């Protein structure tokens, strides 16, 4: 192969890769453009603070849905983060035996379960015994969705902590469990926080597991035992309604959700970058 033909192929491949990049960016850009262009018009202070108005009445907002999403995601995180991180530390520190293989296999299967199936399971486990929809049920569904990726993410990050730190701590007469928590987990923490933020933002964007667990609510509700509104379910209801006014409200609610999830992801990225800086030193 001559130098000339190599240069030609190199140039052609660069063009192909560039095109692939552009094509991949089209959906992202169009989503952003559509949501912002259609949602921005309805954005007002009242939209953040007011309750939804019945059809026909102008104004109103999704304040209760924003609060509800925060509530459900917070509860789900409170259940899912300790379980996921704990399982991850276990897998990394003690996961080479049979139990570890089982846990890892279960986590893999669980991460492949469609979110609507997780919703049905939460319906059966929480909604049916309680006899009504609740934020708890939604939180359980979101927690189940968070655990597998969080466990595997934590495992990878804990395994990156050099074995020598473990030994340094043990050789000082620090018990194993304390070494795991206060030396190993502490060292992996910045990365784990990133994984947690990404898990939270993914959970906040879920609709299917909430549809028949936390359902919806047209009023303010801060009690996790009650049916609770969420941005995603509200968007779903507005978007599938026949009313033009509700359609535009769906776009605005979608914009708010995008901002919420986007700022979480951005926070995660910034943390990850700081962590890389720390390692490079």
């Amino acid at each position, binding site marked *: 192969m001559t130098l000339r033909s190599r240069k030609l192929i190199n140039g052609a491949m660069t063009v192909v890769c560039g095109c692939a990049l552009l094509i991949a960016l089209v959906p992202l850009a169009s989503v952003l453009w559509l949501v912002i262009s259609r949602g921005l018009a309805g954005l007002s202070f009242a939209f953040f603070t007011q309750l939804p108005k019945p059809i026909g009445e102008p104004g109103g907002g999704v304040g209760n849905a924003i609060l509800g999403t925060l509530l459900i995601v917070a509860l789900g995180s409170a259940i899912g983060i300790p379980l996921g991180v704990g399982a991850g530390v276990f897998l990394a520190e003690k996961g080479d035996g049979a139990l570890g293989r089982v846990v890892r296999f279960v986590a893999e299967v669980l991460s492949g379960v469609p979110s609507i199936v997780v919703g049905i399971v939460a319906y059966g486990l929480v909604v049916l015994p309680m006899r009504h929809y609740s934020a708890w049920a939604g939180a359980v569904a979101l927690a189940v969705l968070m655990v597998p990726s969080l466990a595997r993410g934590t495992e990878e990050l804990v395994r990156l902590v050099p074995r020598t730190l473990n030994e*340094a701590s043990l050789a000082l007469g*620090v018990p194993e469990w304390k070494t795991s928590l206060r*030396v190993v987990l502490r060292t992996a923490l910045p990365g784990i926080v990133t994984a947690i933020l990404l898990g939270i933002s993914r959970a906040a964007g879920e609709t299917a597991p909430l549809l028949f667990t936390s359902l919806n609510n047209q009023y303010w509700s801060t009690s996790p035992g009650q049916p609770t509104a969420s941005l995603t379910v509200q968007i779903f209801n507005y978007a599938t309604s026949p009313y033009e006014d509700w359609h535009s409200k769906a776009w605005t609610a979608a914009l708010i959700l995008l901002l919420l999830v986007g700022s979480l992801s951005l926070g995660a990225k910034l943390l990850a970058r700081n962590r890389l800086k720390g390692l490079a030193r």
Partner: protein
Amino acid sequence: MMTVQQTHAAAPQSASPQSASPQAAPAVPKIEVARLNAWFGKTHALRDVSLNVPSNTVLAIIGPSGCGKSTFVRCLNRMHELVPGARQTGQVRVDGNDLHARNVDPVDLRRRVGMVFQRPNPFPTMSIFGNVVAGLTLNGVRGDHQAKVEECLVKAGLWEEVKDRLHTNALGLSGGQQQRLCIARALAVDPEVMLMDEPASALDPIATARIEELIRELKEALTVVIVTHNMQQAARVSDHTAFFYMGELIEHGDTEQIFTNPKETRTEDYVTGKFG
């Protein structure tokens, strides 16, 4: 006189085992090792090793790579058993007490038998100050550790270099400084024995010299076992030297004798650089 066979014959469980040193040694040695065998899975890493280390002396362990030196010191603070698939037989006694007796908690033992590793391993999330007192704070010892930090850093020969930046991250130190920090950290829990696994192998000659000086000072207060690849280092810092080869203790005696008048030809070949 100190051949392997003789050591074996004399060592098992006797209350006053034969002295590790041909010269005067305390009645009960600080460390007594009798017929120690260690395995990693199916690999037989240590074969029937018996030797004693008197109090306030420095024992150097020399031998080619893979001869079981590191495994040997890791058996002395029960770090060996943490490796998956590792097991051991035989006895190790510190102050006459068997390390593997039921009532011995390896966690307590490791506070008495400290260890410094081949590569500096300060805790990256902690400051210099935090690293020195890590063994105390992680074990829940509260209080103002200021005096302790200064004492240990002075002993480790690091105080002058770091006293103005005690609260900066420990990773900002050079490799040699980090290793001295790790020594200060090991000293802070007041161990009686210090195990050092090639503590200077990753360091430049100046940092190495400081650590050797430190080892000679340490034996005033405690007993030191140091693994080294560097025979000059063994000759400079130790009172006794043990030569390991293929998992066996080939020869053990006064450092001067090992280096000038070894009994075994394999020892002579190794210390004169014919192999290894």
